[in-house]
């Protein structure tokens, strides 16, 4: 057991919180997407083309750098579209689903008896591998490496993403099996981040065999693997750690035991523009219009797959991403406010104390996608340093990265950054630190 007191971090109280109670949307979808763009570190090598018939479990594409890493079709169907973006980067593969998922695509195995090698092969062949991600750089795990530790995401406290204390309540058995699997993959510890959210930590979670619980305070981003690792056991040179979401882990257990792909997850539909923010159970890669069946208020809206800080923008008629278990809908910030900075600001969300909302604010704030100001030079207010969960001084880091001084960047902790987005959120000069740091991380990852 480890106790982690996070310095930094910030809880943003946003409107549009999902209410408890899970609505099942498990009808086999007519269209489903596999978001290749979410799989950082994978260079896709296509194995199918538009019009091909695929069965659930058939390989859609491989990682060019390591053909063992495969991404598979979640359902039977026809490849409807292979979407590419700038410079032909593969964005997603959309499958027109036949309306069924054939039974037992893979051989079922027992969790207890499976050897490490068999487990690896199984994970790679079933396309489960990309659910494992690796730090530094938060890329899809490299099967040639052994992780020092594995972190299971049992605490997700970005605003309005599924509360794992709630989701995992009744999943004791599958979760324990999952931990047994992970123990085969690492010689080190399997960490689970635990904190009382609105819901208490399920009792059994405190004493799962094989885990090292990391008790922490419920403040974003205490649940992030790299934040925990930085505070609990920093990654040394030539070491890597892996992390996996607890729901993904349970799906892997289900697949192993039943031989049937399990892409269903408990997700949230949230945000100020959602008519009925709620928990739903649906499939990874579902269409936005399926999960928003209860309606969103009319207007120019921003659809986000994943959390409000780390999620990606998707189209209104797009699909959910590979990892983010939630959909946020907020208003696009196109409205121009009269006398914006001269107001007392009772309703303005801010980490700083320059608005009266600090003292007389509402419980939750409605935020749009507005940048809330224009970009300016850094004025060294050091808010970014105050919120950083991994003790980075972002106001110095971003300057050395802009000057392409990567040696200094590494010394200042560019690899420790989990891209939680808080520094960018609080910046009064509206500097996109997140973008600068993630570009540098991509560059450093590529250059080795």
């Amino acid at each position, binding site marked *: 057991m480890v106790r982690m007191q996070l310095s930094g971090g910030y809880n943003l109280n946003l409107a549009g919180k999902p209410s408890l109670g899970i609505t099942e949307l498990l009808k086999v979808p007519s269209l489903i997407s596999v978001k290749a763009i979410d799989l950082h570190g994978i260079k896709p090598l296509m194995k199918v083309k538009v019009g091909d018939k695929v069965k659930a479990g058939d390989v859609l594409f491989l990682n060019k750098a390591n053909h063992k890493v495969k991404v598979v079709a979640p359902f039977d169907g026809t490849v409807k579209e292979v979407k590419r973006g700038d410079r032909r980067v593969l964005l997603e593969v959309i499958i027109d689903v036949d309306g069924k998922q054939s039974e037992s695509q893979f051989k079922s195995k027992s969790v207890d008896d499976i050897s490490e090698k068999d487990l690896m092969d199984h994970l790679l062949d079933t396309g489960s591998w990309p659910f494992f991600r690796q730090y530094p750089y938060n890329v899809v795990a490299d099967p040639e490496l052994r992780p020092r530790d594995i972190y299971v995401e049992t605490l997700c406290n970005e605003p309005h993403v599924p509360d794992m204390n709630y989701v995992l309540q009744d999943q004791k058995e599958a979760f324990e099996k999952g931990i047994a699997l992970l123990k085969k993959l690492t010689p080190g510890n399997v960490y689970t981040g635990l904190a009382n959210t609105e819901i208490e930590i399920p009792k059994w979670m405190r004493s799962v065999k094989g885990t090292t619980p990391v008790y922490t305070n419920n403040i974003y981003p205490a649940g992030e693997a790299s934040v925990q690792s930085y505070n609990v056991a920093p990654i040394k040179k030539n070491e890597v750690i892996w992390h996996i979401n607890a729901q993904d882990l349970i799906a892997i257990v289900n697949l192993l035991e039943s031989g049937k792909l399990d892409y269903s997850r408990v997700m949230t539909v949230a945000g100020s523009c959602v008519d009925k923010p709620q928990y739903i159970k649906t499939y990874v890669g579902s269409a936005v219009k399926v999960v928003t069946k209860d309606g969103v208020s009319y207007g120019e809206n921003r659809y986000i797959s994943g959390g409000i*800080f780390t*999620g990606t923008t998707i189209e209104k008629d797009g699909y959910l991403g590979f990892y983010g278990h939630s959909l946020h809908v907020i208003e696009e910030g196109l409205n121009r406010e009269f006398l914006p*900075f001269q107001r007392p*600001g009772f309703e303005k969300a801010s980490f700083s104390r320059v*608005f009266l909302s600090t003292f007389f604010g509402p419980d939750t704030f409605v935020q749009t996608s507005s940048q*809330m100001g224009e970009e300016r030079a*850094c*004025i060294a207010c050091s808010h970014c340093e105050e919120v950083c969960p991994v003790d980075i*001084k972002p106001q110095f880091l971003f300057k050395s990265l802009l000057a392409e001084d990567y040696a200094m960047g590494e010394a200042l902790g560019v690899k420790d950054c989990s891209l939680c987005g808080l520094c960018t959120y609080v910046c009064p000069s*509206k500097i996109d630190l997140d973008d600068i740091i993630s570009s540098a991380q991509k560059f450093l990852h590529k250059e080795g």
Partner: protein
Amino acid sequence: MKVLLDIFEKTRKDLFGPGKPLEKFEPGYDAAETFLFSPVHTTKKGPHVRDAVDTKRYMSMVIAALIPALIFGIYNAGYQAQLATSQSIDCASCFIEGLKLVVPLIILSYAVGGTWEAIFAVVRKHPINEGFLVTGLLFPLILPPTIPLWQAAIGISFGVVIGKEVFGGTGMNVLNPALVARAFCFFSYPGKMSGDNVWVHISDPAKMVDGFSGATPLAIAAAHTKTAATDPNVVEALTAKGFSFMAMFSGLIPGSIGETSTVAILLGALFLAIVGVASFRTMIACVFGAMVTGLIFYNFAPASAAGIYHLPPHLHLVMGGFAFGCVFMATDPVSSAATNTGKLIYGFGIGVLAVLIRTVNPAYPEGMMLAILFMNVFAPLIDFYVIQVHVADRRRKHE
């Protein structure tokens, strides 16, 4: 407001848009538009929402914090002028007289400095920065009320152009622009910036009251000597001239416009602390540095030394520009040290230097300005070493 917004958007499109006749002057137009309406920029990717604070709000907090010192400064400038020429000192006439002295300076400072700011924005094709809103108000507040307007104009031009724009504008400047402007005036026109005759406006020398001296407490303390045991000590000498601690604390004394009232400045400091805009660390460290240095002089100076050596340290805090500099100048985040530890060292250095310069060099009774400028120059060095320590700590963590 929709109508006004439409007018603005249409004007932008027709006159200032790409390829339109006034395209070059878009920064100026943009400044006016974004003063009235929030800009339209939206986030493109995560984080999808942003904190409501922007630099405009941030800077306006400093302006708000300056209001007590500004109002008191206006009143005091008038009060001193009325008093020196034995005219009515009721509130209204002091205020009117003060407005006559101060408002032209403020308008001039904003107009001249703002013009430079706009010129650079147009040439460099970047938006006009709101940092100038603060500089433009700070500068008049640290001037003597009698300064000729043309000197102030040259001063603010120097401050904005050499103090800030040549380094790349707001956020890039090494020195505090308002202090650069004042330093320029101080060294170029010493006759109008120092001495005993510049702090009080004398409208009609014939009416001047007998025995009037416009000397500031610092000048009196510097000139004071105690040769015989029966001579008054420096505190008694100051009190005899009307400069008791309470008088200097409340601020109805000659001095630069905004600097005299420690009470008004403390109100501003309290406000800044509540909204968290200026660094409290810097302020505390600065006061601490001054107290330590003051104590050393107070205890160890030889009896023959000038009166200022024998000042009880707490008096340093209410004399001259110390309080104003400590609260509003030293805490300027851009020219100050940026690390938390750095701020402590930086603030302490300012406190030490301010008292040191005041005391040891009677030619520069206003040590605060020089102390801050000096530490501004050292701030990057301080940060460099603090960062080295930070980097070493990080490295150790990953080894």
